[in-house]
């Protein structure tokens, strides 16, 4: 356990030791901030218009009209950023040969993979924590449902943890970070839009595709509804890719 935490800590520090980590963090805060400002003022306008319209008065609320779409946008931003954060996890170690330190140390491949993954999740937590002030602003301006806010954070974290797991596997297949970036971004995009195929796929297949897609499992969570099947989906998705990475790292020793 100590070794896993040491590896995780090193990975997390690494993000802050390179421009890439800071660029992603600053970019994330800036872009989400921009979206938050834009969407908040947009919502304020709609709400004030609705105040004079008895028909839509009951419909509009901060949870469904502001929080859910905002986190939807945040997920898309993370879809773009996570491959850039996960690409170095193994590719960099192999390129600069520091992998030899890990391989010759008394740590198992599973410990290496878990340590690196936890390090990446740690950075994710830092990124999401950097958006916490938006919820304070919302509390100051209106009355958002804390439960819905929390479940949106959970959904975004789980979603991004999936992105990182896919990116980590891609990174374990190459010593070229750019290749890892492109492969993981392509793969994530495919998984993301799979639910859109629902419309064109023959019946039956459409629902299967939608079930595999990450997007369709996000819906209930953004409404504040914690369904076991969604949580299980995300956790098993992560588990699968972490396991695959573990197998991949183990295979290095036997190639």
């Amino acid at each position, binding site marked *: 356990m*100590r*070794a896993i935490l*040491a*590896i995780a800590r*090193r990975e997390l*520090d*690494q993000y802050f*030791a*390179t421009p890439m980590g800071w660029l992603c963090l600053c970019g994330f805060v800036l872009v989400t901030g921009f979206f938050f400002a834009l969407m908040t003022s947009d919502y304020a306008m709609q709400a004030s218009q609705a105040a004079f319209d008895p028909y839509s008065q009951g419909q509009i609320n901060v949870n469904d009209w502001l929080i859910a779409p905002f986190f939807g946008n945040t997920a898309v931003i993370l879809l773009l950023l996570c491959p850039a954060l996960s690409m170095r996890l193994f590719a960099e170690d192999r390129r*600069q*040969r*520091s*992998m*030899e*330190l*890990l*391989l*010759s*140390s*008394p*740590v*198992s491949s599973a410990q290496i993979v878990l340590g690196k993954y936890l390090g990446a999740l740690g950075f994710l937590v830092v990124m999401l924590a950097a958006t916490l002030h938006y919820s304070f602003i919302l509390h100051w301006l209106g009355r958002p449902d804390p439960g819905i806010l929390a479940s949106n954070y959970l959904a975004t974290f789980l979603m991004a943890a999936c992105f990182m797991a896919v990116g980590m596997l891609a990174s374990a297949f190459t010593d070229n970070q750019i290749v890892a970036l492109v492969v993981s971004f392509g793969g994530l995009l495919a998984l993301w839009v799979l639910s859109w195929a629902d419309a064109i796929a023959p019946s039956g297949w459409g629902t299967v595709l939608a079930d595999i897609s990450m997007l369709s499992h996000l819906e209930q969570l953004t409404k504040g509804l914690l369904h076991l099947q969604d949580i299980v989906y995300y956790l098993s998705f992560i588990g699968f890719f972490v396991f695959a990475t573990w197998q991949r790292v183990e295979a*290095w*020793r*036997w*190639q």
Partner: protein
Amino acid sequence: MIRVEGLQKVYGGFEAVRGISFEVGRGEVVGLLGPNGAGKTTTMRIVCGCIGATAGRALIDGRDVLEDPRGVKRRVGYLPEVPPVYPTMTVEDYVRFAATIKEVDDPEAAADRAIGRVGLAEVRHRVIDHLSKGYRQRVGLAQALVHDPDVLVLDEPTSGLDPAQRVEIRELLRDLAAGERTVILSTHILPEVEAVAERVIIMHQGRVVAQDRIDALESGGAVRLRVARPGPEAEQALRAVPGVSEVEGRPDGRIDLRIDGSDDTRAAVAAAAVPFGLLELTGGDNLEAVYLRLTAGGEGPDPRENFGRGGVSSTVEA
């Protein structure tokens, strides 16, 4: 301490190591020699548990590297050819990290000791990326030493260093090799092996072609005689001496012999040559000549081809 039995490693279709065996005793310093691609690095990586062997096994103190990788790795320090450093970390952070993942009880104290040992104290707060190659090599050594291993495996520890840095590292190695520590050291630089190792294992094309003490390898091998009355009779008499494997008369009247390494054989050769008027007995290859002869293959004519091949020492393996 280290025992390697029938080790084989195949990468794709390429057989990098072809069933080698050797042993290294406790406290021994052994040089692993061989041209590029001889399989030295692969052998070292298997011994350290970085990669698995296709066949055969490596044992450290009786423990199989594959069956008990963690137990073995706790006792082995490995410095790869390229120091496995994280360029963005400081020296101190890096060595502490290495100490932690090597399961040292008190990583900070262990890191301090290792840093002091390899002479990194004045740069301990600097980022590794900003260090010279010599210092990076020391950082790599600190990482290999931090858990105070019984076995040190060093892959070309002085490659790419300037002569002054090379001397420094060599001094350090000699210091580290003192005591009970077992060291395997691979290198291209033969004087370096002679400076620190007692014994060498020479590899070529994935096989061990010789392993013996350096002095035995050097004294074994070639002897050249000059006698007053050369000829078939003299050659016949020399050929009859036990331990002589090859006798070849030269047009200038000298006789080249290939013998085993023992001094007894040498004395017997001298005695056999006396009746023919022994004028001169020279010989003994230096390590370089032994190395070049054993690792020649496919790259132009061997300058010492007239000596033939094989039969260099008692422990030569085909």
